[in-house]
């Protein structure tokens, strides 16, 4: 048999293409090491705090409203999600009409209709509903406390009602992820007939749904290994072309230990880790990885007590404490991993409001205020702060509190730190400063998120949220603040509502019921292979537009 040159070249090219083809067709997989110790729940209402929403909420599901995660520079605001528009009823402000996006399909192929929205509201609010799931109630209802019912108007229109006029509802609804009723019903039908108790059948259907979820999001859950890994694949028919995934598969791995996460990244087992070990940052950078960070809607504060006898009742003392902390120095101490606060929200946020009190480092003025209040180096003001050695969102509480202790000493404060177990601190946050379990503290160090107005501001300054109702630990509040809150809640035009919230924020900063110390910056380290990363000013991040080499 004889071969000419052309045949040999053709054969060579064919053989070459056979070798190359698998590489070209190789699946693009993104592996993420989360801080969570377990896979956040996958049935549509994730647990594990906002990390749950970030990884098993937003990628697989949509809500009626969504957060804009497309910019690293602008504040993240609410935008349309599965609803294209919404408005409160002109005559009855407890009724809201939401218009649904047409043509949206769940991963199982069923269509998104108003019935699906009603079904998803009822999964957490209607105890008689067949699909009511107590395990989803807590994480959902607490985020939308005034939502009461849902009613279908037509296939693409739904009416939601609230217990009182509440302009915050569209913001709260970013937390109600819409799961597929058709898929759940299929799972219910597959529960063995031997299980006759309807509650038990529903429970088993939800467990099966979580193992094979169906939402409308850009990724579709395909494999759940509890406590080990969760895999999602791209939903190439996603309704928003800008968010149609370029990555084929995302693998989520719970790696709760910071050193384990860092080692997994450095050894190439994952492409992305959340919150790498702080002391490993230089090693990570030198290994060619990129560290992304951006101030998050998060506050690391001391929340003051306004109970009788508290040293913080004097506004000059509160202002002095805020002026006495050199936050840039603290930032250096933390390796640059904190944002410097000017209030609960940043100056570029719609709720900023231009307060007249400027939170900055001004030692001379701080000392002057303390002197006016009757304190000096010889007669320091004793304050006691309840804090923990660790805890969700607490960053590095011991280091930071010890820094504050030293810094405030210069302004005639004698700070006693009472470091107790994190759950005990958290429990006392609800019990209040007057409770014996506060151990005589007149400030508490518990961090909080500022994604929505209630959690960012209202719960800390309303007389209706005194302990044990909510987290107004220090009993701060008066008619003026109650009035500002009522105005914001009952202003239904988006821009006007934001203006009312800006007024509220302005007055909070001016009255200073907190010592604002830091914003977390949500550091995450990624391999250089991961492209198109936008780290917004949010707790969340959008995986959909990213790609991987």
């Amino acid at each position, binding site marked *: 048999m004889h071969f000419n040159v052309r045949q040999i070249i053709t054969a060579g090219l064919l053989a070459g293409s056979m070798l190359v083809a698998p590489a070209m067709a190789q699946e693009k997989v993104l592996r993420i090491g989360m801080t969570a110790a*377990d896979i956040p729940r996958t049935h549509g209402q994730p*647990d594990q*705090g906002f990390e749950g929403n970030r990884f098993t909420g937003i990628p697989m599901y949509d809500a009626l409203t969504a957060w804009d995660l497309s910019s690293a520079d602008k504040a993240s605001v609410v935008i349309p999600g599965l609803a294209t528009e919404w408005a409160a009823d002109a005559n009855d402000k407890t009724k809201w009409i939401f218009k649904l996006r047409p043509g949206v399909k769940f991963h199982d192929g069923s269509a998104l209709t108003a019935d699906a929205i009603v079904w998803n509201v009822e999964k957490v609010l209607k105890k008689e509903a067949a699909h009511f799931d107590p395990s989803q*109630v807590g994480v959902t209802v607490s985020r939308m406390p005034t939502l009461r019912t849902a009613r279908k108007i037509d296939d693409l229109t739904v009416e939601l009602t609230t217990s009182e006029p509440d302009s915050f509802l569209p913001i709260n609804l970013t937390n109600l992820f819409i799961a597929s009723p058709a898929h759940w019903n299929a799972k219910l039908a597959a529960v063995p007939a031997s299980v006759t108790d309807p509650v038990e059948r529903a429970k088993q259907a939800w467990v099966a749904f979580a193992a094979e979820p169906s939402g409308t999001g850009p990724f579709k859950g395909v494999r759940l290994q509890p406590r080990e890994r969760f895999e999602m694949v791209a939903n190439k028919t996603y309704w928003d072309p800008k968010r149609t995934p370029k990555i084929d598969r995302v693998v989520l791995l719970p790696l709760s230990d910071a*050193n384990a996460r860092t080692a997994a990244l450095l050894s190439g087992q994952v492409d992305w880790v959340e919150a790498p070990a702080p002391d490993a940052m230089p090693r990570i950078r030198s290994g060619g990885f990129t560290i992304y960070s951006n101030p998050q809607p998060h506050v690391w504060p001391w929340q003051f007590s306004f109970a009788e006898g508290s040293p913080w009742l004097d506004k000059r003392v509160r202002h002095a404490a805020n002026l006495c902390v050199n936050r840039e120095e603290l930032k250096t101490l933390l390796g640059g991993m904190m944002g410097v606060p000017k209030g609960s929200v940043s100056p570029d946020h719609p709720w900023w409001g231009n307060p007249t009190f400027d939170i900055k480092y001004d030692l001379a003025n701080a000392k002057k205020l303390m002197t006016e209040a009757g304190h000096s180096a010889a007669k320091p003001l004793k304050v006691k702060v309840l804090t923990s050695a660790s805890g969700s969102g607490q960053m590095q509480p011991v280091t930071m509190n010890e820094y504050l202790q030293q810094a405030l000493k210069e302004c005639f404060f004698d700070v006693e730190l009472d470091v107790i177990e994190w759950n005990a601190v958290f429990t006392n946050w609800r019990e209040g400063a007057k409770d014996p379990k506060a151990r005589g503290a007149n400030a508490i160090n518990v961090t909080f998120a500022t994604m929505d107005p209630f959690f960012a501001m209202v719960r800390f300054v309303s007389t209706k949220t005194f302990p044990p109702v*909510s987290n107004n630990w220090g009993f701060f509040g008066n008619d003026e603040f109650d009035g500002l809150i009522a105005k914001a809640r009952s202003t239904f035009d988006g821009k006007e509502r934001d203006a009312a919230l800006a007024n509220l924020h302005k007055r909070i900063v001016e009255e200073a019921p907190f010592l604002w110390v830091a914003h977390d910056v949500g550091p995450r380290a990624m391999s250089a292979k991961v492209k198109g990363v936008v780290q917004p000013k949010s707790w969340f991040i959008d995986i959909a537009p990213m790609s991987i080499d």
Partner: protein
Amino acid sequence: MLSYILKRLALTIPVAFGVSIVCFMLVHIAPGDPLTSVLPPDASAQLQSEMRKLYGFDRPLPVQYGLWVMKTLQGDLGVSIATGRPVASELGKALGNTLMLAVLATMIGFLFGCLFGFVAGYFRDSWIDRLASFVSIIGVSVPHYWLGMVLVIIFSVQLNWLPATGAGPGGSADWAWDWVHVRHLILPAMTMSVIPMGIIARTVRALVAEILSQEFVSGLRAKGLLDFGVFRHVVKNAAPTALAVMGLQLGYLLGGSILIETVFSWPGTGFLLGQAIFQRDLPLLQGTILVLAMFFVALNLIVDIVQSMLDPRVQRA
């Protein structure tokens, strides 16, 4: 022999009852809310109270305990609050993973522990003894989570020879006894083996030294037995105690190590227990502690029986 076994079995009943009370009470006394995993801390007081009712935590503790014991006796350990999955299935998978790790770690520990112990005991007060004792003391003293991190830095980060975390590229569900998977087991098993190795080495060294000082050894030598023959007698005399220590160590390791399994993200019982503690997942916590405690009780029972078979004097005692 049968009566001895029955007597030992009967003794486990009050122990099991005591264990159930202790583990139920301990998790309820600990600070924190059992609904932590399904209820954000900033949830309203009304919602908290409703959720407590839905999950049955509003009932008096004795009633909760009674219901739990009744269900447990029927083989139902309940459902995890955090995940909604049955505790028994979560625990079953974790036990399997820990078993692999613990058996391998015990084998490594027993092998090297006996080796160091015999050598140290046989060459007592020599430099060999001091070296072997030094290694075993290091094994007992070194914080194993620290050792784990050091091994990860050397073998995973720097040399890139072995993986740093996990139970295989596809997780433990895809486990196979091939190199791709077994390499995930090496670092955690090595880390876990240092404590049993140290303890077994110290025990065996003392035993060998004591046996060698006994008169029957002089007798054996006087009868003309060579060193190897004497060594066989020493091994036979030291075996029951060494075996008992190994059994106890296996028991400890089967409980899983929260720290090691967390450092290596190994999905075993320690990892599960750690998560249950942090999430205040009471059904999972109670079920895991109870099963592990009963496992330990059962292991003690087996060791006692095996020991009595090897050395009938144990029965009489």
